[in-house]
């Protein structure tokens, strides 16, 4: 049996889907009359088409809706962070904050001070003609802000992964 080219296969599928019309349809019909291998291929594709066309929507068991409604609050939905990952993140944040606090108390950042002159920054220089003020940077202050942000993040993680699920469970147990 001769091999059917993919383009012809495509036309046969379009024919089965009822997408062919006019001259294209007539042309295919003519080709079908003259080629037994094309007829055989159409029959195979038709067999596939017929079986698949029986596909229908399936129904779950009759009590399905009731079961869903009864279980709406039975399952607790974890946040994007699982309690385990949340605790790990919390420990990491606390360790980082702790290290920074120790370093601050040791006075490591006391000497970190500098002045950034905006006039030296080339993109700024390009757009501003007059001279700009210099900004002084205190290393200790910057680290203190970072520690503060870390503590806020730690609290949010603690709330989302430990406190909230805990109180929700407790509330659920009393209902």
């Amino acid at each position, binding site marked *: 049996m001769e091999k059917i080219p993919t383009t012809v296969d495509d036309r046969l599928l379009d024919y089965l889907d009822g997408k062919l019309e006019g001259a294209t349809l007539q042309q295919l019909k003519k080709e079908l009359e003259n080629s037994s291998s094309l007829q055989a291929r159409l029959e195979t594709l038709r067999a596939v088409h017929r079986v*698949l066309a029986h596909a229908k929507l*399936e129904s*779950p068991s009759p009590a399905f809706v009731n079961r869903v409604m009864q279980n709406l609050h039975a399952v607790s939905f974890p946040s994007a962070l699982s309690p385990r990952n949340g605790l790990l993140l919390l420990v990491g944040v606390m360790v980082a904050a702790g290290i920074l606090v120790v370093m601050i108390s040791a006075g490591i950042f006391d000497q970190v001070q500098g002045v950034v002159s905006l006039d030296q920054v080339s993109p700024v220089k390009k757009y501003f003609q007059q001279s700009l003020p210099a900004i002084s940077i205190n290393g200790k202050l910057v680290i203190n802000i970072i520690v503060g942000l870390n503590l806020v993040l730690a609290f949010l993680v603690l709330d989302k992964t430990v406190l909230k699920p805990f109180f929700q469970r407790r509330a659920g147990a009393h209902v």
Partner: protein
Amino acid sequence: MISLQEENKLIDRILAGKQEPYARLVENYQRFAFTIALKILNNRPEAEEATQDAFIKAFHYLKNFNRKARFSTWLYRIVFNTAVSYKRKKRPVLSSIEHHDRADEPEQSLEKDDKQAFVLKAMDKLNEADRLAIQLYYIKEFSMDEVAELMGQNMNTLKVRIHRARQRLADELRKILKEEALTL
């Protein structure tokens, strides 16, 4: 079926804290959702569990549903993802049992129609994505847009996938029929 307007009203009421209107949405979409899960999992009890989970998830995440898309499209995507994660979690032993326990295929008709049995056998040769695409494509209640959306594919890719899957099925069917003829 409920209208888009009615659906929006139901969603508003659910978001306002009422739970009962959700039953109406579940009732409306249960067959669609269950069919998607069943086509992915090939096991009715498991598909029902996955569908239930998906509806519960949808209820809890409803506040995240932006109404640019239809609720059905959003829900089907949740069902698809839930069923796929169920499939991944499934133990291999269970999977091999289920392979032979195709509860969604009526046995009687398999006996009646050999060709149907052969086509179903050929379906096993397709990869999962092709099989799901072709099965959902032939369920007239699902639009091509919905199938593309729930499978996370663009329309053209899906069309090509379905086209090629049908060709592959025909090739497999021909092979099976040839083998059957030789064994007679």
